[in-house]
């Protein structure tokens, strides 16, 4: 009888201590032991994971392009060990199909995998008996879901609370400032520029923050990212142009000196800016998004949005990465050199 009671107590104790998390597909994942080894297949996930954990110690495998995005950049310098992690369990490009044996060899307690690119890339991992958390990133709500899932797994709920509070407070402040804006400006974001022109339409995260800071997205007539003709861009004649942080070497000059766009208002006024790149690119949703909102607000309506951005970056990096960002880091993150020729940039962010 005593043995039975002890067994029941142990069973309940195990259940009580088991970690449980619901992923973005609504699946419940249970862990019997603390999560110590994590493999990430989605490219931006490790930077969020590192920001919540404050270290990269638990990462045992990342996508090759995660390393490409970090190499030679702030986060790569801060956590150089990530650049040495194995990546050969998944292809180099738009290939999130894992080599399951390669993933198993890393003995992960948890694998992060995209939840919105089909079951073909997801099921092989679950079929192999691995713990897989499905993640998606499309909007602000998804970003907060990432924070919830990752902080639960890491047992860092306090950090998650700080991150979410920071987002909430910044959003509130930005919204208050935007409400005072009388004359709205057109802000156009180029998701691709070099080989073809792709803009961010309705429902994209870029559309969300353009509206948040009080701007108008001229490309909101269609949903998602889509290709446009140069003529359409000229017809929109945006006041502010944002160049993506994805295409290497893309700079405001590419727009300003473009044979056709050079006569548009943004080119003539030099209100063309390259999106910064910190712990991750500032264009898509990520752990540093509140900085994107402030940065864009200041550029578009400096008279309404006024924030001590450099101090904000330092403060948030201390909270996110537990490190002090140097002025040289800030210059690199804000792309001070590349944006030097753009209107007001140096004065606003020096």
């Amino acid at each position, binding site marked *: 009888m005593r043995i039975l009671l002890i067994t029941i107590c142990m069973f309940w104790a195990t259940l009580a201590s088991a970690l449980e998390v619901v992923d973005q597909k609504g699946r419940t994942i249970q862990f019997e032991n603390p999560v110590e080894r994590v493999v990430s297949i989605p490219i931006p996930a490790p930077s969020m994971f590192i920001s919540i954990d404050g270290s990269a110690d638990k990462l045992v495998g990342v996508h090759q*392009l995660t390393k490409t995005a970090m190499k030679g950049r702030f986060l790569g310098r801060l956590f150089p060990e990530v650049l040495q992690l194995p990546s050969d369990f998944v292809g*180099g490009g*738009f290939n999130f199909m894992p080599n399951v044996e390669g993933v198993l060899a890393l003995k992960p307690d948890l694998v992060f995998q995209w939840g919105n690119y089909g079951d073909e890339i997801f099921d092989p991992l679950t079929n192999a008996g691995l713990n897989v958390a499905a993640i998606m990133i499309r909007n602000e709500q998804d970003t907060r879901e990432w924070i919830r899932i990752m902080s639960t797994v890491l047992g860092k709920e306090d950090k998650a609370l700080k991150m979410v509070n920071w987002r909430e407070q910044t959003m509130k402040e930005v919204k208050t400032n935007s409400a005072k804006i009388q004359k709205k400006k057109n802000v156009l974001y180029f998701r691709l520029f070099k*080989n073809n022109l792709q803009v961010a339409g309705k429902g994209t995260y870029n559309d969300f923050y353009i509206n948040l800071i009080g701007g108008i997205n001229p*490309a909101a007539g269609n949903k998602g990212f889509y290709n446009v003709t140069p003529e359409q861009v*000229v*017809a929109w004649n945006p006041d502010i142009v944002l160049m993506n942080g*994805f295409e*290497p070497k893309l700079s405001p000059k590419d727009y300003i000196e473009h044979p056709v766009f050079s006569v*548009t208002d943004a080119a003539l006024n030099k209100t063309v800016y390259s999106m910064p790149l910190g712990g991750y690119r500032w264009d898509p949703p990520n752990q540093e998004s509140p900085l994107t909102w402030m940065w864009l607000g200041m550029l578009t309506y400096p008279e309404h949005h006024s924030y001590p951005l450099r101090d904000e970056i330092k403060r948030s990096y201390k909270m996110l990465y537990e490190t002090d960002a140097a002025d040289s880091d800030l210059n690199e993150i804000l792309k001070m050199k590349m944006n030097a020729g753009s209107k007001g940039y140096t004065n606003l962010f020096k």
Partner: protein
Amino acid sequence: MFLKKLGLVLIAVTIPVLYITSGQLNSSVADLGKILVNLFHPTFELDAIVERVILLIRIPRALTAMICGAGLAACGCALQGVFANPLIGPQIIGVYSGAAFGGALGILISENSFLTLSLAFLFGLIAMILVFVVARVQGYTSRLTLVLAGIVSSSFFLALVSMVKFIADPDDKLPAITYWLMGSFATASYAKIQLVGPLILIALLALIILGYRIDVLNLGDDHAKSLGLNVERNRWSVLGLVTVICAGVVSVAGVVGWVGLVVPHIARNFSKSNHFSLLTVSAFIGAYYMMIIDYLCRGLSSMEIPLGVITALIGAPFFAYLLRRRLES
């Protein structure tokens, strides 16, 4: 007869004028007239934006569409003649896939559009050489082995295209490659026309001149030989010219399907039965057909719709209609 000719001339002038003066940005025929006058003698004050859109976007785009459309239509017509098969299109000889691989590779390794163009052209030629090596046995090439060699070459290069997509960065290179593979004149420029235009036009002219020989090849190898024609030399000459045109088109516009298959069938309604006439009419119709297609691509919405989508959406049902009509008659 005179009225019919006048009507054709009016259509031939109206379509390019409409193409050049309409789009997302408002402009008028008067604007076009003023721009043309200014080119020779600066007289009028013009809106700088309208001037640049017409001069730097619409006119080079219209010229590129016309050159490519004429080239592709003539290629389809010549191949249908050489193979004596109305279901043949330029894709069949594998040049498209080779050029597609070259272009995709160019985008992957560089941001220089002229490198992309050069690699597309180069690999189009390499694909044709591969077909030549595989299909020519003991100095002779049969139609069947030629088609099979085309399939081999096509499959090989399509696999390489898949490999390029497999390793391309999903954040920047992959969308660019995917879009390029669907075809577009969005990046048309005078520089590209200067590079590829003369090649396509010279090859097109040579193809038209070879029209009478295609008539003989169309009769079958034995008949052609009995009429004293060097079948091998003439067939490979046609294929070589088709290769130059197709590789040139793919290098400036990406992969554009259906035009080479459909337009010759339309042309047969307006031309004499010899290939000199058929190639000429196909080239003209192809030029205008492509311009209309491209107008739909850039004018239907604020989105730039890939060419391949519209050519297939219009081409496939139209081809099915032609096929049924032919079977019924």
